[in-house]
């Protein structure tokens, strides 16, 4: 007994030591692999973030120079009608857009999952295609399609002697943008859902069918519950993306006569403040304020879906 206890550490020590050295070496190799990313990550993401935070605590005026104002810019942002209007717009836009996108992409994915023909593969590619087109080009293209004088819509309506709807007017720009964003992203979400559907064990369907389940029942009771995590993931993506809405309205501004002011969305407002009006401080504050709104919205959403949204848990 005494011999054993005395001897054991002697035997174990060198081995443990050896292992520790190997772990250290592994660590170093690991860091070497991570380093390129870490450097870029810190230099281009973390540092600018802190710099922007620092900037947002000051106020620079054309007359009177720069002053430290602590949270004044944030107080201003949350009482600034332009900013709040932008926030309400993107929230309203999300409320319509996200369900629409979900229904379209889920519906298409379920159909493509059920149909196994060469045409289904072709359709999958085609529906995904808009995502491969840069947002800027997509927005431009739609800008032309919406055109009152040379767009196809004008021609179709013109054939019936009617004036086509002007999706670039103040009244209809909401729907014009809705269509563009859905077109752009539905295919991408469809692929995510489709991939999740492919991961389901097909024996489940067989068992369900033996139990007498119809196609609808399989969809509603098996497929959708099993891909719920993917749906939550998409929802979070869509929510963050929409709250940060920028590219499409920024491009369409040049085509939509006055329908899209420079403070249309919070991101556009921040851009205008920083780069057109030289108000970097307020621009940074708006960005952080928007970040806070996004965080709150996503948190609320995650809280509601916490049982199913296991991917972030």
């Amino acid at each position: 007994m005494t011999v054993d206890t005395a001897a054991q550490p002697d035997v174990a020590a060198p081995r443990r030591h050896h292992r520790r050295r190997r772990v250290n070496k592994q660590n170093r190799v690991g860091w070497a692999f991570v380093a390129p990313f870490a450097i870029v990550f810190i230099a281009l993401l973390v540092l600018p973030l802190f710099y922007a935070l620092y900037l947002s605590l000051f106020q620079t005026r054309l007359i009177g120079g720069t002053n430290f104002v602590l949270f004044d810019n944030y107080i201003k942002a949350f009482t600034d009608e332009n900013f709040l209007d932008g926030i309400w717009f993107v929230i309203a836009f999300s409320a319509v857009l996200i369900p629409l996108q979900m229904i379209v992409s889920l519906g298409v994915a379920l159909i493509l999952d059920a149909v196994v023909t060469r045409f289904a593969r072709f359709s999958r590619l085609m529906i995904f295609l808009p995502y491969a087109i840069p947002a800027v080009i997509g927005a431009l293209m739609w800008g032309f399609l919406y055109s009152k004088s040379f767009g196809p819509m004008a021609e179709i309506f013109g054939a019936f002697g009617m004036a086509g709807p002007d999706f670039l007017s103040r009244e209809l720009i909401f729907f014009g943008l809705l269509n563009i964003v859905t077109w752009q992203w539905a295919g991408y979400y469809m692929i995510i859902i489709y991939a999740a559907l492919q991961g389901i064990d097909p024996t489940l369907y067989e068992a369900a069918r033996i139990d007498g389940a119809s196609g609808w029942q399989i969809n509603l009771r098996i497929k959708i519950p099993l891909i719920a995590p993917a749906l939550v993931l998409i929802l979070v993506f869509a929510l963050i993306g929409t709250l940060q809405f920028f590219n499409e309205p920024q491009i369409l501004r040049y085509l939509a006569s006055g329908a899209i002011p420079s403070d249309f969305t919070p991101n556009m407002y921040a851009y205008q403040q920083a780069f057109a009006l030289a108000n970097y401080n307020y621009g940074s504050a708006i960005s952080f304020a928007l970040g806070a709104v996004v965080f709150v919205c996503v948190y609320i959403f995650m809280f509601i879906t916490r049982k199913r949204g296991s991917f972030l848990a």
Partner: protein
Amino acid sequence: MKRKPILAAAITLVLAGALASCADGGDANEGGGSEATNCTNTIPKKDLPVVTMWAWYPNMELVIDNFNEQSDEVQVCWTNAGQGGDEYDKFQTAITAGTGAPDVIMIEADRIPTFQVQEAIVDIAEFGYEDVKDDYSEGAWKDVSVGEGVYGVPVDGGPMGMIYRKDIFEQYGITPPTTWAEYEAAAQKVKDAGGPLFGDLGANTPAVMMALQYQNGAEPFVYDSASPENIGITLNDDASKEVLDYWGGLVEKGLVGTQDQFTPEYIAGVIGGDYATYISAAWAPGYLTGAGVGEGEDAGVWATAPLPQWDAANPTFVNWGGSAFSVTSQASDPELAAKAAFGVYADEASLTDGWQNQVIFPLNLNALNAPEFVDYEVPFFGGQQANKEVYVPAANEYTGMTYTPFGAFYFDAFNEQLASVNDGSITGSEAADRLQEAVVSYAEEQGFTVE
């Protein structure tokens, strides 16, 4: 040269340009021009000091070559950093960063106070202004000055006139209106006869409205660099309201369109004969030609006439657009930079190329009063001597305007109000009141004392 014309002429180009110039902006980070490694042009005299320059005139390459060839003191390294707003955004970033701006920069007259108030451009009165003072009119100098300080070398201007379609005027039996009242009457006559729109109120051209308000005797801004913290803002006086109500009325009566200008949609309308007139500046023929107007179905139908007046007995001439070369405060050698600013686009060969190809309307009096310019039969106007009949007199009568030190905000806010006028939600007077309120509160927020 022009406000934002070519910018939106082809939206695809805008984007390509924006993307390309993003890259340019990064590359052109030359820290005050001490090193000039990214010129678009080649520098022939390599032993001379080099000055960096941002500019977007379409014939800039030729202009720079002309200058470099003739100069024995300095060479210019030129980059196109984008047109108008694109360039200003980059310059603004460079100002804040304290580095990255060129030595000399092309700026439109209405933006000069914006950069002057930030001390981003320098007074060039002592760097050879006296030598060339007589080469430009008083109005041209006023546009590039803030108070007593001279902040740019004028290059081109935009005396305004009324471009119109001869065929539409003939068809409906009207002659060019000389007053705004006649303009409205003619518009009504054309509409009643089932004709096209008479003109257009683009929400994206607030500078036109500012000029037309000036024409009616308004003076939107009183600003002097001697006391930069004080500014007078009068955007809702009777004269301004009269102009905005007049145009708002034209829109309401369906006499003019509401399409944003410089968009493909607008150009398609211009080509298709949807507009009988285009209230614009002397550079417009060049812009329209570049956008494909005046070829094919609408070839040979364009003519120009003097701008309609409020009071025909006391005509007032105004300006839209026009730009200048300014020396930036980041220039390593401002005196040398000023030499380039004064010299570029001031030689006869460059100016002649500029006006013959309708790229610019020269402000240099040597070119402006030269017989070959005055008598030139402008091809776009079917050989009409447009300079003699319309633009040279307008340029000579022009006395200059005072612009605001926060042009970006003012024009943005004006855009928004014009858009509301266009969709009928407010009247011109209301737009003026709202604009006044927005601009005054911005000015106060920026630390100005509003008088």
